[in-house]
């Protein structure tokens, strides 16, 4: 029996009516609360402020394992700005390592939903939620994953260090689910790809999200900031260099699956504005091709795009990301709330190598 929390689940947001019923599962917050409440440690060894350590991002392009053997064609699809304006909603989640205790690792997770309503952008930040991950409680966390279909063929719980990213992904999927269930006739932007079948993205779960969105006449577009996909030796996005924006490059010849990994979207390279940037864009495979392209054209007419990247998604990223000040603030909160003494351990690299000791401690 999970103990009653002192805090409530997400209140009714100031969302457009379609999205206002979005709620965060109480189990997620209970997990955060319980993991912190049961800290059996007297000190917190803080992580150095993350000026040089970018926060972990989630559900990015993980499809490097999909080899592109012989792509048949790359087709350029010119786009036009659609006058049919649609609501645009984006979601992103960040996690960051806060420090270590005698028994485990402390991290914090925060999600952000941004949406454009008429000419104004709005956002909702969820968190930060601190987690204390130990060998003792990682099983409980893993159990939570499984109860939400996030299970892999590997029956063992992942290592403490991997759980931070997993928790972030879990929150991201929850937020995506909430948006898919609430938004109607909208464009939903994900950060990352539509690759499923990995520990963080079970096929059934991702497919369910896409199906819910389709049933509510919404289209999911997934933008990857970094892609490692290559063919003929070149990075996928390099092919858009000479393309005339706004356009999509349709890449044909991708294998739909590789072992347990499955592509649930059609892969494009999107060059939506002039400039040097282009992105891998996944569009729900089950959405008719024309409707998918219409969705991108609606995005052009509905959202501000800078360097081919939608502003709504950029805001979701900005509002979820942790700054160094916030990390210090969270460290202070944990020390204050749970009575931990902050002890800075010497940086072994610095001790050994002096000014040549670059990188994280260890």
């Amino acid at each position, binding site marked *: 029996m999970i103990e009653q929390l002192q805090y409530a689940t997400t209140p009714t947001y100031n969302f457009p009516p379609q999205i206002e019923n979005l709620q*965060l599962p109480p189990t997620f*917050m209970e997990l955060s609360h319980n993991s912190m409440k049961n800290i059996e440690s007297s000190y917190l060894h803080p992580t150095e*402020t993350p*000026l040089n350590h970018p926060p972990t991002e989630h559900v990015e392009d993980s499809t490097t394992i999909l080899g592109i053997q012989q792509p048949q064609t790359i087709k350029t699809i010119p786009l036009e700005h659609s006058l049919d304006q649609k609501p645009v909603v984006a979601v992103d989640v960040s996690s960051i390592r806060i420090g270590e205790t005698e028994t485990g690792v402390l991290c914090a997770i925060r999600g952000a939903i941004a949406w454009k309503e008429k000419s104004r952008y709005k956002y909702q*930040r969820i968190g*930060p939620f601190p987690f204390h991950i130990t060998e003792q409680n990682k099983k409980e966390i893993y159990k939570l994953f499984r109860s939400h279909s996030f299970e892999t063929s590997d029956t063992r719980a992942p290592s403490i260090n991997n759980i931070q990213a997993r928790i972030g992904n879990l929150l991201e999927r929850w937020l995506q689910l909430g948006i898919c269930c609430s938004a109607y006739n909208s464009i939903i932007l994900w950060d990352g790809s539509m690759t499923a079948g990995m520990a963080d993205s079970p096929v059934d779960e991702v497919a369910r999200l896409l199906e819910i969105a389709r049933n509510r006449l919404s289209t999911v577009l997934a933008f990857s900031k970094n892609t490692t996909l290559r063919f003929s030796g070149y990075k996928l996005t390099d092919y858009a260099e000479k393309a005339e924006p706004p356009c999509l490059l349709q890449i044909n010849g991708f294998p739909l699956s590789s072992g347990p990994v499955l592509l649930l979207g059609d892969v494009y390279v999107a060059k939506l504005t002039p400039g040097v940037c282009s992105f891998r864009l996944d569009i729900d495979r089950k959405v008719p091709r024309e409707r998918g392209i219409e969705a991108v054209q609606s995005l052009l007419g509905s959202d501000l795009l800078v360097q081919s990247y939608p502003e709504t998604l950029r805001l979701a990223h900005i*509002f979820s990301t942790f700054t160094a000040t916030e990390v*210090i*603030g969270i460290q202070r909160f944990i020390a204050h709330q749970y009575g931990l003494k902050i002890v800075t351990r010497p940086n072994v690299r610095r001790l050994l190598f002096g000014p040549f000791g670059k990188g994280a401690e260890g």
Partner: protein
Amino acid sequence: MRLYKKEGSNLQILSAPSDDVEKGDYLLVENTNVNRKLIAQVIDVQFASVPGLLEELLRDSTTDEQVYGENFDPLGVSSHINHIQDARMLICKIRGTMVNDKLHVNSSWLPCRSKSGITKISFNSLLGNVGGDGGLPINVGETKDGSPLNITAHDLDGRLNIITGKKGTGKSHLSKLLVLGLVDYGATVVVLDLNGEYAGLGLSAKGGGNQYSGRVHVLTPGANFRVSLSQTGLGVILKILVHALGLPGTSTREFKHIWKSLSQRGKFTLQDLGEAIRRCSCNMHVRDALFSRYNSLVNSGFFTDNEESATDFGKLFEKTKKDGGALVINLKDVSSVDRQIVLEYTLGNLVKLLNQWRIKSVFLFAEEAHLYLRETYWEDIVTRMRHFGLFTNFVTNQPDTIKENIYRQADSIFLFNFTNERDLETVSKAARVDAETVKSIAQELPPRHCLLIGKAVKDFPVMVKVRALDIKTMGQTRLFFENRVSA
């Protein structure tokens, strides 16, 4: 509060936004295990340089215009993040070190960063710690924490003090407060009152008499302050002729002969002097020069032949001997030349009386002294006359009119607000304080607040709100639109 950095006599202390510490406050940095304490004064409060703050502010700035939203923060972590954003860095000056409860004026001791306790200390406790003398207190006002601030009459005795600040900040008010404070302890005070502001010292705010009525004597040159030639003496009259009226050397020699020959015949009048000059068998130009100066003396109205109506300076001082008193020389409406004549007479006689030990010592308060004191008097007053018992307090809103060497010798400075960097630069030449303190604190002093620097506050600069006085305010600016409300 945590000790962050020490460089020379500068200390940087990290402070939480909730810490009630402001500019001017004193902090005690204490290492209990070594029985040492560092006394530091906050001279500036800045935001702490927190990593990532710029990103934070940039992100927040987007929310002001086209983007707005909400935070769902069930654990209340945001308050801690705000706390970090608002963290402050206290820039402090080390004023001394207490070793085994004894004050040492050095800042070389480096306290322990991790184990030092830092506490705010009230100014009066600080003075208690360093052994402040409580005898003959003069209440100046109150410190920021509301506790009364007393200096002692000893702190003004034998000292050179400067009261300075820009117009309308309360310099004259403080000066009056010090005058009355000294009179309370039986001191003799002479005030050179340029604007007739001190004439109301003996009157209450409502207009009736106050406790000082019998002890404040307002002397208006040409009215109730006139002197005879016999009282003046050759030495003083020569100073008037040479320094106030610019008589050349040859003419001065001739005047001496005339004066001496008249003196041999006994008492003489102004008319006798004029007649003697007219009959003098000297060069025509010399005679003309002497005549023009003679006419200036006569026209000043300061000299009289009527011995009964003449002011006996010595007797006036006698009056102040028992219970103390203030002689206010009202120089309002007195022309520049006549002002110098009066001042040469007053100071000349003062020194004479002090030399003869007819009075023990005199506290001189000089408002805008550059307007009537000749250049050579400055050093004379500061160096030589101090030994005769003439203790000067300069009051000015133009600090650059006082020479640098006077700032260096000043024992205490009562500094009111200055916004002009150059003015602060001038004051900061005072030997008893560092320039950073002066510039940082004085620029933000509100009206009627002053920064006390120097011996009066045992070299611990302190900000004080000057207390009100029950005296009639004089010398206010006459306003054209005073009784008119906006149309």
